[in-house]
């Protein structure tokens, strides 16, 4: 059960990253997703090696995810993108500000608002990200996405921006993903 909670926490964080990076240029989007994927993996491994209970690790992952949301949205706004996402980002930032104010004034009320917001966010994320994300399944995990899946299975933003097989990250012979950007090939920027 506790391992399941950890799996779900990591999955939720992945979906959140997928959501707020949707619509960005491939290079930026893949870089942020890969960086978060590495972070989640490292945290899980480190906690396992330290003998932490999966429930504790899950709570830590959730906390890092939740507390980072305002910064994620702010970063997303700075990156530009669609008008709707920018508006949603501004709304969410304003919501976070009001929630923080409510928590300061009335702890109990603030907690209720936060819990409701979390529940709605979770439902929204799950419905928007769409489909189960299984890191071992190349068809569903963004890290392993090859671009050869049918267009209907790809995120709407990719389809809208005309993403095609040619835009997908190439793979080396060893099966590792390799982006087109020169700065992702090992050279210091």
């Amino acid at each position, binding site marked *: 059960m506790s391992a399941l909670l950890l799996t779900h926490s990591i999955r939720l*964080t992945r979906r959140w990253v997928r959501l707020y990076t949707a619509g960005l240029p491939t290079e930026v989007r893949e*870089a*942020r997703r*890969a*960086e*978060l*994927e*590495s*972070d989640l*993996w*490292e*945290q899980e*491994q*480190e906690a396992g090696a330290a003998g932490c209970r999966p429930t504790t690790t899950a709570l*830590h992952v959730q*906390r*890092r*995810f*939740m*507390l*980072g*949301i*305002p*910064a*994620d*949205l*702010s*970063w997303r706004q700075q990156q530009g993108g669609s008008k709707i996402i920018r508006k949603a980002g*501004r709304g969410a*930032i304003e919501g*976070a*500000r009001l929630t*923080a*104010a409510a928590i*300061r004034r009335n702890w109990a009320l603030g907690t209720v608002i936060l819990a409701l917001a979390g529940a709605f966010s979770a439902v929204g994320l799950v419905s928007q990200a769409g489909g189960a994300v299984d890191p071992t399944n190349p068809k569903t995990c963004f*890290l392993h996405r090859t671009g050869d899946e049918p267009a209907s299975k790809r995120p709407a933003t990719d389809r809208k921006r005309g993403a095609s097989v040619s835009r997908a990250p190439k793979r*080396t012979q*060893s*099966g*590792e*993903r*390799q982006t087109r950007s020169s*700065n*992702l*090939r*090992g*050279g*210091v*920027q």
Partner: protein
Amino acid sequence: MIKLATAVEEAGGEDTRAGVVDGRKISSYNRSMRRRPDTLLPIEVSILAAGVDLRRDGATTFYGFSIAKEIREREGARRLTAHGTLYKALDRMKRAGLLASCWEDPLVAARERRPRRRLYEVTSAGEQALAKAQAERPRPTPRPAEGLAGL
């Protein structure tokens, strides 16, 4: 330790009580707030200091999770820095030239059966900015009780 009150002070705020967070004075919450140029935010100071410490210990580069862990240990915090806060700061610092980054060789990651890491290192500009920030940091004033105890 990161004192949010420091950021409030830097932003010209009135409320300087330690630990008091004013949402109006946090850039992520308030679009109208702008930081002073050539100043480092507390998270940036922490990242640079942790990066310099890691290099001193023999690690020439660091990656996101390692720096979060180092910050936690250095500052005696119980928890790791939030994802959004950490990666937004790293991105901003890279753009500002305080950090340089590259992606790890995919073969190394594949050999160790883990996702590829983005490796960062503190640039000379980053070191200079850190030295300046540490020199400008106000010294903690002794509490009245401590002052009386010394009499």
